[in-house]
């Protein structure tokens, strides 16, 4: 599978979950509602201006802080197709895989600019920057996580494994 999209925003290092979805919105489980407040702690206009299929890019340790799954849900629900970062905080990383939001760890994010159009090949893990004609590699997922991604998240994995 391949996806292509434009880099909507490039974030700094250590973006935390309070910035992704401030705690005042943790009183809901509604995806639509969470989508409206994605990234609000850092950019009030984000949710209004991001388009379906856009990609976000960040420096290291994206998603640090709390375990709130509301954070990756908000990002996914507002239309972001994938996140590329130098590294992700551990719980956020798990949560993304579990809910089926594609993420990629890439050491070369410094070369990516806001507005670039990227094409990502999920099989090879290669990112092609269509704006600059560069290609970047990403850290491959271990086999187990690959399986989680393929079936579309943890609950589907659990369902299949336990024949539910």
């Amino acid at each position, binding site marked *: 599978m391949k996806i292509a999209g434009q880099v909507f925003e490039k974030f700094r290092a250590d973006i935390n979950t309070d*910035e992704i979805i*401030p705690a005042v919105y943790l009183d809901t489980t509604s995806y639509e509602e969470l989508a409206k407040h994605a990234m609000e702690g850092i950019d009030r206009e984000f949710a209004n201006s991001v388009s379906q299929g856009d990609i976000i890019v960040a420096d290291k*340790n994206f998603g640090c802080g709390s*375990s709130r799954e509301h954070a*990756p849900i908000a990002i996914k629900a507002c239309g972001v197709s994938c996140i590329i970062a130098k590294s992700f*905080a551990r719980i956020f990383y798990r*949560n993304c895989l579990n809910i089926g939001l594609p993420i990629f760890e890439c050491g070369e994010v410094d070369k990516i600019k806001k507005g670039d159009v990227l094409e990502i090949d999920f099989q090879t893990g290669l990112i092609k920057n269509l704006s600059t004609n560069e290609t970047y590699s990403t850290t491959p997922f271990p086999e187990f996580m690959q399986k989680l991604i393929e079936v579309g998240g943890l609950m589907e994995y659990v369902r299949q494994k336990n024949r539910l």
Partner: protein
Amino acid sequence: MGKTITEKILATHLERDVSSGELIEVKVDVALGNDITAPLAIVEFEKLGVKSLFNPDRVVLVLDHFAPNKDIRSAEQCKFVRAFAKKYGVKNFFDVGQMGIEHALLPEQGLVLPGDIIIGADSHTCTYGALGAFSTGVGSTDLAAVWATGEIWLKVPQTIKFVYYGKLNPWVGGKDLILHTIGDIGVDGANYMAMEFTGEVIPKLTMADRLTMSNMAIEAGGKAGIIAPDEITLEYIKPRAKREWKVYASDSDAEYVEVREYDCSQIEPQVAFPHLPSNVKPISKVGQVEIDQAVIGSCTNGRIEDLRLAARVLKGKKVHKDIRLIIIPGTQQIYLQAVKEGLVEIFIEAGGAVSTPTCGPCLGGYMGILAQGERCIATTNRNFVGRMGHKESKVYLANPAITAASAIAGRIVPVEDIL
């Protein structure tokens, strides 16, 4: 090659040898959720259509973040969790009146024990590492999967060993050691890894100090913050435990990715400046920082020992006229103990406000939200942008004694300044 305590706990649960880096699916002893994370987990769990929890006695639910309900929406969320607990027979369900902040409550109630694997849909679940358990935070979907299957997928983490030696300075405790450590390695210094706290200083620390250290492992990105049990741990566990437990320790030839040593005689009380827990300065280098509010509480420093420390500083003194001091005991038991010991009287006479147990302002819920431009010193664990209120407010993290002293002085000061 020897094994770390983390590898040993995971291996026992898997009933085979494990090495760091391996991905495993392993049995869980305790699964924790709260009023914020459980609702999402309940939605996922019910979609699966399984009839029962893997073991209702090992599921713990605590309403602590926005409870006592701060508004209608949090009331709805608590109601949703309450109904779930009833439907699936969760006895370890803690509602207003019995509840406390989860990570103060679970060890106190003997629900988490040495050698356990504990999974919690809350990032500070790493707190229980102080008891010699493997304990880590996950998201809601992970929790739902554990409820259904009793298992979790994990990567066996590598471990960084931290060695604390030398004599502790006055007014230096677990909070300062961990803040200093986070300042040293950074907010992702232990990402994906277990932190193991060792050295001659650790056995001299109270359980409260150890729980504070393990609690903040996540602030360095740590998957766990583990301390091998000793006499003090067992003294704490024995009267509380209602089931078997097992004590593990790392082998002397266990493999660590890194070993870091700290001479504690060089460590002063620490203050983490906005907006990262790693942005620490020793108290002597803080300079002139005026504050509007001081908060003593949270799963990091809301235990009875923390309140005693604060009371020692506040006794017979008055909170600065321009400061709001808010004190939040971690659990009902701690609150009652504080009443019995006369600590609450000291706080109120000093001009502090004492609250029922809740996370409250720690995550910007309620009970002390900051306005634009306001500054707060707090014994909590995160000082991210907007964590306690307005995006342009600021949070400084410190130990309970420094926080109490600062409430008296109206600015961040060493304890000696107000004695």
